[in-house]
């Protein structure tokens, strides 16, 4: 029930608790199109995070009066499985989950051509099956692929990654222990090809200089993950192509 917590988060050779260098991402595995019912879906593993995203829509809005005359209604639910964390989480949405659902929706919204689907709804569901720090960022990364898989037209993929400060050092892509014991966590989402930040939050303490350093590192991480996103999409389409040609 209780994790053993390390005394130091970065050792003398600048290695982090999981052996990474300060500017190193955790191993990432992405798969697109993993669920048969959803209109689009994707799965990501980033470190020990395991996250599934699904998209339904554009579809009719229920209840009707919520529909918007000039664009699609975008809804998002970030949700943690009861077994995804150290102590079992109650299934009812926590205040944290409600806030994250909001900021994730707002992070994805600028990418979608919502005005093309007035009076419809697009629903994004993000399920955290296992949590290991940085779930909101990985959730945005994978949800953006589920949107693409659903064929929803987008300005760019949205990709997210955190930077932060741990034992006095600015590091990339914090894991659970670094998040809990570190000095600051700065999750950032961007549309890389548009140079646009769509999510920005911060907890902790950073000077303006450290902040600038951290946001640059986070955006750099985003760009590296962006490549993996595009590869995963390509892999999906190749698979389909092969299927069709078989």
């Amino acid at each position, binding site marked *: 029930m*209780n994790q053993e917590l390390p005394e130091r988060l970065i050792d003398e050779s600048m290695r982090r608790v999981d052996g990474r260098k300060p500017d190193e991402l955790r191993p990432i595995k992405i798969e697109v199109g993993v*669920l048969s019912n959803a209109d689009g*879906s994707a799965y990501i593993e980033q470190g020990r995070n*395991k996250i599934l995203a699904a998209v339904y829509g554009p579809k009719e809005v229920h209840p009707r009066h919520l529909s918007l005359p000039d664009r699609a209604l975008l809804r998002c639910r970030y949700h943690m*499985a009861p*077994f*995804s964390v150290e102590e079992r989480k109650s*299934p009812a949405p926590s205040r944290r989950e409600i806030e994250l659902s909001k900021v994730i929706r707002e992070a994805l919204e600028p990418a979608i051509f919502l005005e093309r689907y007035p009076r419809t709804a697009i629903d994004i569901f993000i399920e955290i099956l296992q949590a290991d720090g940085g779930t909101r960022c990985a959730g945005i990364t994978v949800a953006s692929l589920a949107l693409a898989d659903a064929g929803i037209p987008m300005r760019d993929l949205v990709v997210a990654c955190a930077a932060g400060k741990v034992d006095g050092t600015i590091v990339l892509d914090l894991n659970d222990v670094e998040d809990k014991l570190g000095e600051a966590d700065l999750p950032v989402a961007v549309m890389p090809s548009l140079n646009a930040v769509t999510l920005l939050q911060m907890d902790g303490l950073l000077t303006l200089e450290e902040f600038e350093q951290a946001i640059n590192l986070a955006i750099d991480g985003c760009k590296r993950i962006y490549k993996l996103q595009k590869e995963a999409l390509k892999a999906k389409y190749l698979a389909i192509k092969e299927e069709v040609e078989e």
Partner: protein
Amino acid sequence: MTFSLSVSRIKQRQIAKLIADGKRLDGRGLTDYREIKVEKGVIERAEGSARVYLGRTQVLVGVKIGIGEPFSDRPNEGVLTVNSELVPLASPEFEAGPPGEESIELARVVDRGIRESGAIDLEKLCIIPGKKVFIVFVDIYVLNHDGNLIDASAMAALAALLNTKLFNYEVVDGEVKIKPGFTKLPIRNYPIAITSAEIGGKLVVDPWLEEEEVMNSRITLIFEKDGRICAIQKGGGGTLTKDQIIEAAHIFQKKAEELRKLVVES
């Protein structure tokens, strides 16, 4: 809507007609299961976990172990709690919010199979009689709904329990201290659920979603390791005859034996 209704009626007739001839739309025989895949230990942070694929139906079960108080009428036993979440990611029919009757029925049927077969030796989960016991949280998480959630969930729950580890501990001055290392959760029975749908007077085992949409009723029998029935649940607003049920019980008993092997040995 009208369109989809009539499509469904045409499909309904087609499905029923095939079944009358002993065939099914997806090519299976009436007592065949879809392909079953059981993966244990997929969620490392949970004390136990398993994912079951039943065709395109996908269910994940995670087991968490907590410490709490026993029920006052069972002071020497651990507590088993089974919940299910039909998360909206899994089906256009599922909605966020507190569990509905379908979700509650699913959890309670799986719970009954585990409880009535005595699958978990709950007395071994007592820490301080009347005060502290282990609580076993079995959370059923449906990821893709393509029919027969009960059988998939029951298999995933059993597989996850078989994969569950328990903290070592000692009691110091009435307080429980966790010690390093783990033991296995004491499992002593292996309940397996077998479900059929009744369509046009015939029972078809392991209905997929399209069959569930046209079935009249559903019958689930859960068998423990020695072949005894430990739970039954009829569902749906149709009827069955006593003879149908008794005949099914014999067929299901054999089926359960096959599935049990698959889950235990996975």
